[in-house]
């Protein structure tokens, strides 16, 4: 039902905000637009155009493909392969048992050892992952949440062994447990002690590992779970505020902790829209700067800079005609660059089938390199700034993010919504609505509900986990257990339990058990006795 303008029929378009999209935008869409207030130059408050003045002209985004597989040795090999091919940062994927605090020899872990990432049972494994990689030369991102305190402590210990000053360590811990209760599911403890542990990591990093991003609050998994583009930002910021309040109540100052917060935000996906996704990330920078300044009284510029990495969103990729996914990832990457991302991890074309093959992961890295070095898209900061359409959308997105955040607060706050299952229910319902639109053809997916080809069999070489992985890991773990002093391990775990019971910051208390080669599973079991375990609410 397009409207007639002269001769041509106009296709109706509605934005994610629910408003009709015009055919073009002009000055009348931005009445009284104040450059200094709305945008300002890059690197200046409210940072709409970017957190740094020269952005990619000074330093390109970090190209950081998510990887980690099987045993520590095989992950070490893949890291070296990626570094040799020009990757500029590392991003470590852990297997599920490591993420939820189980050792490779525990019965529940049996089918998952080394499957979606590397298995880490003890400090010994962690040392092998970084063998020959100097920790002062590289930054590493860790997708780890419930067991983040242990991984941080291990990284510090590896640095000590390498003779690297921990004050020089660079990298990022995901350390965002609240979104695990909504999507992804790698929780262990109930929300309250889990938030306390997030606070411990932030507090410790502030003092002892100051160049580390202690936290990367993730809107990505929430978006995959069904959140729309505005909700992915509003929920992430609401969750970040829970952690901020946790550390503030311990007496920290906002300007001590806010600079350690980073975000991981989605670009792409099943309901991707190029300009909307860019606008909402520009809006997110402005929203955060104003929030942290006005609500928390921050003054340090670094507190107000909303620094984010982008990535993930394998949910937008299709099993049908899988090479089309290379085109999709390229467009996602371009949107991420236009948004001013600081780091980029692209979903790989074969991820619908399994974790990526070497070829697929290399292709994702090459997409980034082509964008960076062949196309000129990285030459000018915020090249879409000043576009009538993008600025109008950015304003609307900022207002909507604020509205969603306010609604969460009115509903009792994000923690309550998680505990009751309300937010999980809402987002899963939205995901169902998108799926129905794809089923009905209302939402077009090329190769899925249109432009199909009769014969779609294309044999991709899918990555396969080496079937010997678990046995190798079990052998290693057995050797570690045989070569340690059981009495000293027990004593160290007992002191850990006492410290947890007292409510001490847990990070310094982890060094002793880790050095004695206590396992991740033993440490988590010890902490479970103090903190308890999470019981899932009914969500469907």
């Amino acid at each position, binding site marked *: 039902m397009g409207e007639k303008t002269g001769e041509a029929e106009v296709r109706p378009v509605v934005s994610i905000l629910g408003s009709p999209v015009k055919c073009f935008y002009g000055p009348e869409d931005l009445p009284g637009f104040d450059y200094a207030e709305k945008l300002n130059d890059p690197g200046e408050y409210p940072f709409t155009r970017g957190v740094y003045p020269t952005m990619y002209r000074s330093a390109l985004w970090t190209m950081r493909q998510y990887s980690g597989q099987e045993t520590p040795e095989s992950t070490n090999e893949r890291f070296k392969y990626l570094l040799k091919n020009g990757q500029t940062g590392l991003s470590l994927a852990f297997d*599920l048992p490591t993420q939820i605090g189980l050792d490779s020899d525990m019965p*529940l872990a049996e089918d998952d050892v080394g499957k*979606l990432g590397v298995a880490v049972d003890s400090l010994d494994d962690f040392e092998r992952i970084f063998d020959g990689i100097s920790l002062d030369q590289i930054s590493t991102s860790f997708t780890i949440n419930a067991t983040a305190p242990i991984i941080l402590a291990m990284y510090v210990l590896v640095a000590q062994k390498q003779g690297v000053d921990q004050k020089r360590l660079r990298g990022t811990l995901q350390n965002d447990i609240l979104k695990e209760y909504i999507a992804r599911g*790698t929780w262990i403890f109930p929300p309250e002690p889990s938030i306390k542990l997030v606070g411990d990591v932030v507090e410790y990093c502030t003092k002892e590992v100051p160049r580390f991003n202690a936290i990367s609050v993730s809107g990505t998994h929430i978006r995959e*779970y069904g959140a729309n583009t505005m909700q992915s930002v509003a929920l992430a910021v609401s969750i970040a505020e829970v952690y901020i309040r946790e550390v503030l109540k311990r007496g920290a100052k906002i300007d001590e902790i806010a600079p350690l917060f980073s975000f991981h935000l989605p670009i792409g996906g099943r309901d991707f829209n190029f300009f909307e996704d860019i606008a909402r990330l520009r809006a997110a920078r402005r929203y955060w700067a104003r929030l942290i300044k006005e609500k928390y009284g921050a003054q340090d510029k670094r507190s107000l800079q909303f620094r984010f990495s982008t990535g993930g969103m394998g949910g937008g990729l299709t099993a049908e005609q899988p090479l089309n996914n290379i085109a999709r990832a390229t467009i996602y990457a371009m949107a991420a660059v236009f948004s001013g991302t600081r780091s980029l991890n692209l979903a790989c074309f074969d991820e619908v*089938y399994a974790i990526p093959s070497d070829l697929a992961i290399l292709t994702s890295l090459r997409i980034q390199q082509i964008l960076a070095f062949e196309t000129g898209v990285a030459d000018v900061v915020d090249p879409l700034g000043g576009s009538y359409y993008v600025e109008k959308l950015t304003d609307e997105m900022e207002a909507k993010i604020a509205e969603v955040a306010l609604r969460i607060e009115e509903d009792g706050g994000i923690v309550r919504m998680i505990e009751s299952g309300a937010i999980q229910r809402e987002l*899963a319902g939205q995901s169902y609505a998108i*799926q129905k639109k794809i089923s009905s053809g209302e939402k077009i997916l090329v190769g899925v509900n249109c432009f199909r080809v009769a014969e779609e069999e294309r044999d991709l070489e*899918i990555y396969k986990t080496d079937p010997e992985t678990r046995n190798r890991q079990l052998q290693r773990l057995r050797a570690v257990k045989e070569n340690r002093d059981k009495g000293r391990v027990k004593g160290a775990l007992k002191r850990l339990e006492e410290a947890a019971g007292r409510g001490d910051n847990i990070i310094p208390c982890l060094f002793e058990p880790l050095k004695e080669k206590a396992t991740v599973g033993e440490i988590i079991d010890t902490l479970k006795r103090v903190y308890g375990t999470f019981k*899932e609410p009914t969500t469907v």
Partner: protein
Amino acid sequence: MGTGRTIRVLIAKIGLDGHDVGAKVLIFWLRDQGMEVIYTGLRQSVEQVVEVALQEAVDVIGVSILSGSHIPIAQKLVKRIRERAMEDVLLLFGGTIPKEDVTALKESGVHGVFPSHAKLEEVSEFIRRNVKGAQ
């Protein structure tokens, strides 16, 4: 909707995988198709799932797995189902499943396999066709 009795479905997450939005989308869909659907929640063991299936007298068990552990889990589940003499239950697997594993799953005793790109309608139609007494 058919005139047969209401089909009862158990959707299960077995193992450590925490990605369950796909499972939930399917639950909403099957309910909209008039089926009764129960969800186990995350991190269930094979034994727990079979016991719930037995108690709830379900016609269908649908297992969602995105962690690559589908083959060993299917083998254990089929074995347990046989031990409990529940061969009448229709067993479905869905999730991140490579093409070449579809055959392996079917050979191990899984009746229907629906990788993540399968259409919702395919699942509900397969259930209607294969559950006895349903229409």
